[in-house]
């Protein structure tokens, strides 16, 4: 089924904000921390409703990660909020030692990931975060695709014990997943069944993959379409089952090809069912200033790039 009803558009970070508020209402142990980006992270509503459970950290992300780790001692479930760049690369060692190695129940919530951050340019457009976080033992890595899926993911990680990296973005994108969906960590969403080629997409590239699949289907190519929202743990079974059916796999992500979803799917298939693959992602370069649409086009992350990648395998 590729005939989605789009219920408007909204940013995934707003899905996080709504999810955090609801998680806070459901569980009094949920606390929020933010490094001077409350509005950008949409944490305002949580802060207003739970002022005693919200902590402004200032522009000091390393300290934020440590304070969050400490708050788990005593039973709290901290959600940290800042841009994806400052949530990962800037604080990698703090996450590694105080959170991942110490297995602390911290939810690292990261907005403005990837090129779609736009005009601020490459300093802020992290494209390596999925790889860095997925390498950490015990870290769960989630990259939802629209407002509703991000909200559902935020609620799901509050109930999951262990460190989580939740990655979302800045721009408004189509809303096409169900508002009342149940988010299962580690379980792929099989969007559409097909037999000629598999497209595996995550985050903002899922909607583009749906559009690509529509075009391909109209041209007579049958597409098996999978949304991997949980990059770690990876749903190996869903990936292998599809690859066995189609024998051709294209991955699509707003991230470096090196070390991201594409690398992890390739590793999975090399081990379980070697398959011809093509990769849609940023090819070993930094981004630059521009509008999100301009950047996605220039760096090869558009619907036509997914179609081109599919055709390279046919």
């Amino acid at each position, binding site marked *: 089924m590729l005939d989605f009803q789009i219920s408007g558009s909204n940013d995934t970070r707003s899905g996080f904000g709504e999810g955090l508020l609801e998680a806070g209402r459901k569980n009094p142990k949920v*606390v929020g921390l933010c490094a001077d980006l409350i509005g950008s992270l949409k944490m305002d509503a949580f802060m207003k409703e739970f002022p*005693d*459970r919200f*902590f402004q*950290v*200032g522009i*000091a992300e*390393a*300290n*934020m*990660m*440590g*304070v*969050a*780790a*400490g*708050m*788990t*001692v*005593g*039973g*709290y479930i*901290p959600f940290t909020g800042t841009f994806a760049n400052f949530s990962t690369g800037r604080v990698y*060692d*703090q996450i*590694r*030692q*105080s959170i991942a*190695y*110490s*297995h*602390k129940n911290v939810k690292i919530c990261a907005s403005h990931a990837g090129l779609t951050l736009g005009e601020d340019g490459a300093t802020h457009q992290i494209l390596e975060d999925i790889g860095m976080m997925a390498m950490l033992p015990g870290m769960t890595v989630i990259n939802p695709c629209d407002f509703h899926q991000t909200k559902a993911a935020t609620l799901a990680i509050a109930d999951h014990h262990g460190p989580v990296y939740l990655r979302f973005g800045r721009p408004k994108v189509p809303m096409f997943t169900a508002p009342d969906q149940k988010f299962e960590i580690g379980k792929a969403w099989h969007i559409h069944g097909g037999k000629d080629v598999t497209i595996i997409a995550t985050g903002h590239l899922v909607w583009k993959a749906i559009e690509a699949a529509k075009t391909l289907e109209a041209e007579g190519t049958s597409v098996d379409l999978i949304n991997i929202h949980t990059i770690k743990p990876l749903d190996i079974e869903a990936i292998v089952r599809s690859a066995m059916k189609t024998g051709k796999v294209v991955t699509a992500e707003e991230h470096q090809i090196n070390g991201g979803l594409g690398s992890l799917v390739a590793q999975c298939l090399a081990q379980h069912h070697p398959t011809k693959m093509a990769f849609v992602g940023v090819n070993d370069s930094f981004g630059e200033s521009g509008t999100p649409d301009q950047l996605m086009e220039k760096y090869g992350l558009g619907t036509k790039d997914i179609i081109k990648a599919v055709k390279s395998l046919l």
Partner: protein
Amino acid sequence: MSQELKKIASQVRRDIVRMVHAVNSGHPGGSLGCTEYFTALYFEIMNIHPEKWNMDGVGEDLFFLSNGHISPVWYSVLSRRGYFPVSELSTFRKLNSRLQGHPTTHEGLPGVRVASGSLGQGMSVAIGAAQAKKLNGDSSIVYTLHGDGELQEGQIWEAAMYAAHHKVDNIISTVDVNGQQIDGPTEKVMSLGDLNAKWTAFGWTVMHMEGNDMDAVVAGLNAAKALTGKGKPVMILMTTSMGKGVDFMEGTHKWHGVAPNDAELEKALSQLEQTLGDY
């Protein structure tokens, strides 16, 4: 009480030099310098329940070691206080041990609540734990220890600013001011400047304590406790001598991370009375 504590400290120092000698690695210098502090904290000052060890530690005082390399003194004191069998000290730094080179929660060692070793991170973690205590309505105190060289890490000053801003007044941090770090005296490697003025300017209540005098340490920690709950975090600048208790290790950075050989071990042990039985 002080006599009892001094006896324990002597045994702890024996444990330290024996542990690092056994694996020919580890950090005896800072461990020996902080022996009075750890002994006083765990046997006199903190309200703790080793027999009911759990990660959350609600209703008891907590301790975080930020300069994780002085794990020998911590492991010795934890075991002597009943967190795990004293015999386990013989596994220090060996394969399949819970007593890793730097402390970790990963192997489930009772008494440890976060991994440390990469410097500068423990104060932030302790502040978070102190805020969790406030949220839980728990009036217990959170203690942390740091090396003076560790203050060169930027995260320490992020944490310092945060604790004062959020009025985290249930934390007592101590800096082991021994003036030494791996490459030499702190004044040569990277001057720390006026630590009293710096911590005061960052909004902390600052105290001084002579760290190798057991009576002074007990009195100092009790005085610090009396300063909690007054809207400001508490900092103790604790003067110690690196390598204290073993004459040839004292006052030099050379024994920061070097183990004694057989002859040196014998010489060291001859200066340290066995009071509780070696492990």
